[in-house]
């Protein structure tokens, strides 16, 4: 009836109980608040059934942020273990726990924090920046988000019911095969990734179609903002890399579910083929993550240097060089697996070459700043931190691209330091820059700059403390995933320094949370009010009256004096984004419009068609959850119910001819007039 799910799945120890308690308190707290403030209907109608990418983007961000806390908690446990478990001491965690924790840490950070941040940015910014009202397939978009959320639920559920995989974030066979991992852990890992991965792939198709077919008239490819170009490159990678992951995970699951011998170490399987395939996906994956971060920096640097981006064309070429090359380097993840010199040399050389286009981008950002009027706002601080941190980490990568060197430091802490430098210093700093840069666009007020800078410095210094020692440890011979060592190695003080770094990063996270709370609390006057105050002060000046200090405000509809279309709409953003689709005549269209001070003609409003809310995306994800949970625990009837449910829901949706609603031109005119009046 319940497959292999029995009471033993609920056995816990102090560590897992701590995790469950934390999650439980959070969930209960949320349910209690929603009930107390009577917000269930609001949640359902405004968020859970919404097909608005602006809302979906916020939901991605919330999931990513929560998962950052979970993954960070895992990191703290890892570091504590590595400080305490020396010589005779066994530390806090058993070896099996430690292995599950580092596996969960990597899985969560890559698939839910980093990918979540990327999809959040895409949902929030792509339609606005290309002058569109929506994505190409809004229903698919919502479904993709809910599939992503389902993956997040599954990985956290493994903490409470059963166990998680203990074979790393990539679960290499033969360790991940039935013989050596007979429990549910690897299955949780497989289905978490498979379900979230399908969501990612569908999003990839969606946003690619959106960018190719829904740009505003006049926005040719070479007039698109660099963020959109970067996203386009990332999408090209998503579309062709994720199917490899889907297939490889499916093959592993077939080995485990049906007793196949694709990757087993006996009966004709080939475990090395798994390593080959998983990295054929895995390498493009890291470029999927970094390209949008590069795109954020392109926008941030140009805006805060008050200057157009230097070398637009070379930036575009660099993106496509990175996209192409990222398909040609994947063997560098397994130089030591035994290929011959010719194979290793080819991939080593390609790996060295891929550093070049990134270098082009860094120089272009710096040249943008040169002779610009640079404003050191929080987003700009994240950029500067990125330039220095990411460059160092990148150089470490080029060092490892030499196979002979890699033979010494493969799977050492040097490698761990390198990839954390890239993902934290690159992807995460980029996500934070984007978050603080675009926050005012969606909320109407800026984040507190002082707290933002404290957060940045904690992260920057914390990162150096947490990972600097790891470069040294790697060179000294410390391997990754190590849960115990002898004091005679002389490593312990370095681990202590690294552990302190994690605490400083934790302070950074604390400042970020504080920043949000404080900013909401003391938010600047709403933009409408600010604009009104501005008009009053102009009138007063014209009449020769004195203007008081608090009426000297900056125009806040456009807090950073932005250059691109997403800033061209007054706050709050209407559901349809643009009342009239803009006509684009060049790059940085909003900047150009502001300089030429074009008097807008009376807008010609048209009917606007938008998708209605629907819960079906959420339900499809629910079906996927049942399917995954059923396969994990061998509850075959449950898996079948889930699968049939998904098919039925898709059929129901496809039979619905009434999925959109229309805002008539007259209604649009009224709404726009209201927006102007309340300003």
């Amino acid at each position, binding site marked *: 009836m319940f497959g292999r799910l029995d009471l033993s799945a609920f056995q816990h120890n102090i560590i897992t109980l701590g995790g469950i308690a934390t999650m439980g308190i959070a969930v209960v707290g949320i349910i209690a608040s929603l009930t107390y403030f009577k917000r269930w209907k609001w949640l359902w109608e405004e968020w859970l059934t919404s097909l608005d990418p602006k809302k979906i983007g916020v939901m991605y961000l919330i999931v990513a942020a929560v998962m950052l806390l979970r993954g960070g908690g895992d990191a703290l446990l890892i570091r504590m273990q590595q400080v305490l478990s020396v010589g005779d001491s066994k530390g806090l965690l058993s070896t099996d726990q430690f292995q599950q924790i580092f596996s969960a840490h990597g899985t969560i950070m890559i698939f839910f924090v980093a990918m979540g941040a990327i999809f959040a940015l895409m949902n929030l910014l792509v339609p606005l920046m290309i002058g569109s009202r929506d994505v190409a397939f809004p229903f698919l978009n919502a479904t993709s988000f809910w599939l992503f959320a389902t993956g997040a639920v599954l990985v956290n559920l493994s903490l409470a019911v059963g166990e998680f995989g203990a074979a790393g974030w990539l679960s290499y066979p033969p360790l991940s095969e039935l013989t050596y991992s007979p429990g549910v852990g690897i299955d949780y890992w497989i289905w978490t990734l498979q379900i979230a991965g399908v969501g990612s792939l569908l999003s990839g198709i969606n946003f690619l179609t959106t960018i190719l*077919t829904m740009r505003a008239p006049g926005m040719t490819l070479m007039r698109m903002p660099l963020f959109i170009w970067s996203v386009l490159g990332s999408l*090209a990678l998503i579309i062709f890399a994720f199917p490899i992951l889907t297939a490889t995970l499916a093959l592993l699951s077939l080995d485990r579910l049906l007793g196949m011998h694709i990757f087993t170490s006996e009966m004709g399987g080939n475990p*090395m083929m798994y390593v080959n395939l998983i990295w054929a996906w895995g390498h493009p994956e890291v470029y999927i993550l970094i390209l949008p971060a590069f795109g954020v920096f392109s926008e941030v640097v140009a805006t805060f240097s008050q200057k157009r981006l230097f070398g637009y064309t070379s930036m575009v070429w660099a993106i496509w060089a990175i996209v192409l090359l990222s*398909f040609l380097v994947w*063997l560098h993840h397994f130089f030591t697996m035994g*290929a*011959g010199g010719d194979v290793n040399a080819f991939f080593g050389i390609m790996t060295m070459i891929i550093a070049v286009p990134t270098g082009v981008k860094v120089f272009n950002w710096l040249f943008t700043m040169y002779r610009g009027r640079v404003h050191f706002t929080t987003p700009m601080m994240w950029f500067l931190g990125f330039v220095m941190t990411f460059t160092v980490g990148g150089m470490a990568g080029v060092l490892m691209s030499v196979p002979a060197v890699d033979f010494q430091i493969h799977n050492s802490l040097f490698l761990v330091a390198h990839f954390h430098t890239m993902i934290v210093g690159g992807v995460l700093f980029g996500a934070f820059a984007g978050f603080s840069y675009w926050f005012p666009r969606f909320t109407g007020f800026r984040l507190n700059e002082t707290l933002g800078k404290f957060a940045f410095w904690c992260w920057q210094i914390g990162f150096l403390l947490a990972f600097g020692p790891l470069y040294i440890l790697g060179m000294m011979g410390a391997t990754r995933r190590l849960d115990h060592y002898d004091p005679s190695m002389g490593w312990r003080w370095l681990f202590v320094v690294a552990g302190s770094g994690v605490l400083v990063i934790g302070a950074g996270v604390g400042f970020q949370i504080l920043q949000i709370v404080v900013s909401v609390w003391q938010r600047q006057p709403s933009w409408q009010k600010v604009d009104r105050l501005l008009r009053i002060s102009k009138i007063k000046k014209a009449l020769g009256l004195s203007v008081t200090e608090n009426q000297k405000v900056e125009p806040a509809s456009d807090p950073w004096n932005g250059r691109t279309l997403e800033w061209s709409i007054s706050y709050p953003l209407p559901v349809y984004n643009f009342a009239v689709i803009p006509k684009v005549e060049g790059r940085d269209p909003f900047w150009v419009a502001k300089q030429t001070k074009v008097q807008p003609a009376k807008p010609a409003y048209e009917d606007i068609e938008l998708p209605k809310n629907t819960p079906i995306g959420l339900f499809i994800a629910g079906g996927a959850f049942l399917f995954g949970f059923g396969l994990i625990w061998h509850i075959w009837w449950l898996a079948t119910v889930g699968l049939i449910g998904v098919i039925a829901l898709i059929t129901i949706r496809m039979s619905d001819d009434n999925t959109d609603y229309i805002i008539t031109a007259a209604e649009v005119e009224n709404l726009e007039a209201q927006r102007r009046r309340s300003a």
Partner: protein
Amino acid sequence: MNKESHSSLSSYLLGFMLSLLLTGTVYIVATRHLFDGGGLVLVIMILALAQALTQLMLFLHLGQETKPRWKLGVFLFMLMVLLILVGGSLWIMQNLNYNMAMPATDTMKDERIYR
């Protein structure tokens, strides 16, 4: 308008006839061993690619869209990735197998190591 204008009866009939012909040809070539070893593999692949191209153009109308030719572009990009993935994987795996070959006598012979 972006209508595909070549989906006429003649293109489908031609595609069907050519596919039948190519299927029959490759079947006879393979089952009667009209070539040997590597040559046979090459001929089979050429005939397969020819039939695939036929069906891509005549059934799937590849290359016949009006500008912008996104479908063609995405197809060519996919083809590049496919060649890298399949070709690269075969090269890598064969190389790995070579270095881990059992029996070692194969490797010994190739590298002229004699006891």
